[in-house]
């Protein structure tokens, strides 16, 4: 039991505070390159917080890396969908992109509440609803044991409602995790080809900052899909994922 409690506490512990503060100081001092490295370090230390991605996106934007900044802010938005500051920055950066394409959807339209809730928040709500349903069931069971009477219908109804709510929120959380296949183009332009190998042809060209969905992965290439249905293969090094739980690659930045 104590081991389990320790695991729970360790799971909720924070990390990356020092690196994050160093990143903030570097930003205020105008050292954008240093700030980027500090923020990435904070992420690797466990500080996957919207503010870290916000700061990283700002530092990348000021360094002139529009594509990478969009990827960082997209990650921040998926952790904090109601954060207006990150949304404003993202909107500003998107206006500077050449390609007019809609970003891939982050959830199914049926789970509309996920536009305002992060996967963590909906997961916690799902967990709380399930817990509430089970607590009601436990209380009803104890009363039944003591009184010897059957479980009242009202308690059974509330248990069913809360467990159904928890299951629905759990399903929407799962959907958000499944739809985290977005990526951003981080090179100035890249040709998207119909197939891997010499027999493929160039289908279209994407420019820095274009937001696409990914649907398959080869050794060095990724199959991307645009919101208008067009698909093609592109070099994986030209993309950065918008999934906040993935490592943020710094290899694409010049000078590294």
């Amino acid at each position, binding site marked *: 039991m104590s081991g389990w409690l320790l695991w729970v506490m360790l799971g909720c512990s924070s990390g990356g505070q020092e690196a994050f503060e160093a990143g903030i100081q570097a930003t205020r001092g105008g050292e954008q390159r240093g700030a980027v490295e500090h923020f990435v370090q904070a992420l690797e230390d466990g*500080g996957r917080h919207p503010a870290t991605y916000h700061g990283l996106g700002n530092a990348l934007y000021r360094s002139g890396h529009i594509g990478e900044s969009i990827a960082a802010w997209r990650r921040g938005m998926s952790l904090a969908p109601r954060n207006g500051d990150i949304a404003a920055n993202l909107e500003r950066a998107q206006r500077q992109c050449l390609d007019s394409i809609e970003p891939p959807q982050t959830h199914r339209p049926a789970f509309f509440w996920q536009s305002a809730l992060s996967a963590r928040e909906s997961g916690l709500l799902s967990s709380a609803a399930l817990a509430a349903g089970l607590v009601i069931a436990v209380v009803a069971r104890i009363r039944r044991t003591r009184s010897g009477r059957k479980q009242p219908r009202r308690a059974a109804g509330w248990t069913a409602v809360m467990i159904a709510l928890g299951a629905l929120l759990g399903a929407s959380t799962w959907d958000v995790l499944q739809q985290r296949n977005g990526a951003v183009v981080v090179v100035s332009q890249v040709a998207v080809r119909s197939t891997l190998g010499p027999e493929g*042809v160039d289908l279209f060209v994407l420019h820095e900052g274009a937001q696409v969905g990914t649907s398959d992965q080869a050794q060095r290439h990724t199959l991307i899909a645009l919101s208008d249905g067009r698909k093609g293969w592109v070099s994986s090094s030209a993309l950065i994922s918008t999934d906040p739980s993935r490592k943020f690659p710094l290899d694409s930045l010049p000078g590294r």
Partner: protein
Amino acid sequence: MILLFLMSLLAHAASLSVEIDQRELVVGQTVPLKIKVIDGSPRGVPEVPVGSGLLLRFQGQSQQHVVSNFQSRRIVQYTYELSATRPGSWFVGPLDILVDGQRLGAAPITIRVGEAPADQGGLPVMGTLTDTAPFLGQVVVFRLQFKRNRPVVGVEWTPPTFDGFVAEKVAEQAQREYSIVENNQNFTVQTIEVPLVAAAVGPNTVPPAVISARYRAQRRRRNARRNTLDDIFGGSSLMGSRAERKTHTTSPIPLNIRPLPQAGRPADFGGLVGRFTLQMKPSARKLKLGESLTLTIVLKGDGTLHGFRLPTVPSDAGFRVYDDAPEITAEVKDRIFLSQAVVKRAVVPEEVGTLTIPGIEIPIFDPETEQYTTVRTESLSIVVEPGEEGAGDVSSFLGEDGDARRAVESLGEDILPVSVPDRLQDSTLMGSLPIIGALPALPLLVWLALVVNGWLDSRKIDPLLVQRRRMMSLPKDPVRRLAILEDVFREVAGLRLGVPAPSLDADAVSSLGEDAQRIYRALERARYGGSSGGLDALAAQVSRFLEGK
């Protein structure tokens, strides 16, 4: 006389109307056209002028009286047959006829005539594609044509899989049905048109589309009575007619989607493929500083405009712009795809003087010339006069009671800074997984424990039930019978006192009451006295004690 006088007062003035069922025809199609003269007597058959792509034939004349709201009306109707002979837009009318010395007129009606249905060469269905070698991003229209000269009860179609294409997202597929006459035979033509956007370069094939039609069965007429009934109900299902189902398929269509050429591709090419026109119209040519004007920008063409956005304006243009979301509409008709985007752009000048709004330039690829080109609008000159705030001397407002404040002027735009949190923590789902798991796990464990406990309780055997069963199967042998009675009594007494049965004695039993003492003594007597005559009565006493009576 009085009645006639009143009737004449109530009489309406003569009027004229022209009725036509359809205003969109195809070459070869014929529809009825009716001219009605109400409460008037025209001289002769009205002459109706029609465009050179139409043919009008007079069919006949009829007359009727209609009484409505206690008023009688006389309607003279002239019926014509209007046939379409050439594609284009043609007028019917205007009409100008003399009725009872009064000239009556009707405005012209526009009739749009499309191409005749494609020659199917005897095949019932045919699938066509407007271009079998389109460029990537070009819109093509797939048309399915079903021509028949037999009545059908129902038609279902299964569209083919359009590999290499994506559906045009704004326009919907168009369906149409009309009748034509060919070789003195009436045909019904049904068309379905699907707009598609070429999306994958390379050779491909549109597989066959399938049409499943239920034809009304042709039956041999057996007798005159049946003939009459068939005529009344038109051979409908009311009279038990049967339908004959037939499936028709189109031929596959080979095609090759070509890539857009790299040569000559403008750097700001946004992917518009087709022939387009661009217009820009301002809401005003003169305004005051601080006011805004609206530019209405219309882009029309035969390519898809899904996701279209106007090019941005540089920050040093001398004015700011705020664009509404484009209103994009599209339709497909007679194998022609037409789309239109209307954007309302609010323009806010930043300084007084003559403001020149540069023309908008949008690079496109024209599939007909196979070249990149640019559609553009002319630049506009707008006169910006001093505004209410800018014109006045600000110092003149000092000392007055009015609010002298003004809006904070924006000098530039930039990204928003980070709000530093008090404590940084992992905000991903994985970071909160322990809590997410622990929250329901705790009550779940308690609930499971309660369920298991209840289950174990339900498996415990009731000791009184065991004794009851023993009492129900007492042996006939008096010695064994007495032993069991004594054992049952001791077990039940022990259970009630909460002590083991072997340790029971007379003192302990006395605390259970008179009846228990009596049974105890009777059992002692029976055991040591050797009497077994009253065992049945004793068994009855033990049973009552067992049930607590």
